[in-house]
């Protein structure tokens, strides 16, 4: 019988700790596939965030480090500057990148660090129990916005990718959604392009934002959650290439 699909070797064969319908598993698989397709497992170093994906190294079989909340772009800077031939990627959630680590991502982009950032935007803090993130939608109910996010007091959803796109040090930004098979294929293409830019030593930072579902803290079924990405999130966070 002909094998038409198999687990890519860099994705470990192990049970998942993620909730049903969570987008992290899809994102991990795409990254592992891209690493294998580009043949860069032996030269890649990954940076895991603080958040649900802190144990990312249990799934992706490359050299990995776990760092303080939000500091991944600074850690990546230290790695890349001392190892210009290695491929460095960080994997960060919206609490990590858009809230506590807003300074680090801004300045890594500002300096034009030659790193790849994978930004998972699921509009909540997942691991700590579904609190409001900077990317939380207007009126969205979270653990810390029981009446829904009040934009007058808590601000509008923060579009970090649009902010970063204006920096000359940022080479490539694309926003994709882990919602439908077509969107997931586009996400893989974007990830591959981001890594290729780094492999080819293109100047500057490459970032792929992935809109990803969190059925547990959105209080939805997994199918409803994917629909919510396409119907609600993409209205505030439009898909497509923002730069490069």
């Amino acid at each position: 019988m002909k094998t038409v699909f198999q687990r890519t070797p860099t994705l470990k064969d192990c049970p998942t700790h993620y909730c049903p319908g969570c987008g992290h598993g899809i994102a991990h698989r795409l990254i592992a596939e891209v690493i294998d397709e580009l043949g860069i497992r032996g030269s890649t170093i990954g940076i895991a965030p603080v958040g649900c994906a802190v144990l990312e190294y249990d799934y992706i079989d490359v050299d990995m480090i776990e760092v303080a909340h939000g500091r991944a772009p600074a850690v990546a800077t230290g790695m890349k500057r001392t190892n210009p031939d290695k491929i460095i990627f960080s994997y960060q959630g919206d609490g990590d990148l858009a809230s506590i680590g807003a300074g680090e991502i801004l300045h890594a982009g500002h300096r034009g660090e030659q790193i790849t950032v994978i930004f998972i935007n699921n509009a909540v803090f997942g691991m700590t129990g579904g609190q409001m993130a900077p990317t939380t939608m207007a009126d969205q109910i979270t653990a810390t916005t029981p009446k829904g996010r009040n934009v007058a007091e808590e601000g509008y959803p923060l579009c970090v990718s649009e902010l970063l796109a204006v920096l000359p040090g940022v080479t490539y930004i694309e926003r994709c959604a882990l919602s439908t098979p077509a969107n997931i294929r586009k996400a893989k293409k974007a990830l591959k392009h981001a890594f290729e830019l780094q492999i080819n030593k293109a100047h500057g930072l490459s970032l792929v934002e992935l809109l990803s579902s969190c059925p547990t803290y959105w209080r939805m079924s997994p199918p409803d959650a994917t629909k919510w990405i396409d119907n609600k999130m993409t209205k505030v966070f439009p898909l497509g290439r923002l730069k490069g």
Partner: protein
Amino acid sequence: MTEKGQTSIGTEERVLMCGNEALAEAAILAGCDAYFGYPITPQNEIPAYMSRRMPEEGRVFVQSESELAAINMVFGASATGKRAMTSSSSPGISLMQEGISYLAGAELPAVVVNVMRGGPGLGNIAPSQSDYFQATRGGGHGDYRTIVFGPSSVQEMADCMSLAFELADKYRMTAMILADGFLGQMMEPVVLKKRPSPELPPKDWALTGAKDREQNIVRSLWLGEGVLEDLNFKLDDKYKQIQKNEVLCEQYEVDDAEIIVVAYGIAARIVSGAVTRAREEGIKVGWIRPVTLWPFPTEQISKAADEFRLFLTVEMSTGQMVEDVKLAVAGKAPVVFYGRPGGGVPTVDEILDKIRQLTIRHKTQDSRLKTQDKR
């Protein structure tokens, strides 16, 4: 002297340098691959020097956007097996404590320089020794230690640097140079030469890309039951080894001394002047100068306290190291403190006066004790 090819550095020749620059050049001689830092007074000579010299050597210099970023850049470079350092002054070191704690948890080597200034808060930019607690107790969250050097001359600023890199690698932890604004700014003759490096354990844990091997993971999160407790005990064993093997301290005229002055860093330089003058007056006084502040020379001080003596601790703070002196003396002798905080620098005369006062007190106590013995 700083022009490439025209330097006396690396030879036996004495050169005149300020402490901050001597320390920076010593780091380069010690094989520092990368420097990351953020401007703050009174240590700005270090990043300025490194921004020129590191690229000359084909090494890395990055001015970070904050001290938070600087220590995390060190974290990243160190995780790949490179020798990395940062420098700052008191408020900046407070910001770095998160990263220093993570370095301890992940068991990564790093060298951090704190050229202390007055605090708390923004304080001032005058020399101070008020970060002793922060440096010697770990500083950040969690159960950990850092190796801390308290140099007292420009030469020692340089010498501690190569030892700091060596011990950081040997024990996979942070080594800190705890200097002050005085030492950083003042100029003294210094001999800068490469220290022969002993054989160190291979960095087989480093993240270099998992080519033809299993993945390496650098982490500080341990969720399994009892796993973190095991790590804490493992770290504690390491710290006990360091306390056994790495204590450095200097003693002067201690054998017949009735008063022993304990001081470190620039305060110890002033103390040594006061002690010399007190000796000229016939006062039996000596000094003990901890060079490593952690591990602290507890044994040496405890031994000195076995003879009935009086201890005077002099610091540029309201009294921090004095607690370690008291722990070492363990009630065997009185411990008196004299300190000038907030950028105040004690003079030789002030300390000499204090020693004279104590001589009178010591004689009175001594005769009281002798009377008690007779009873």
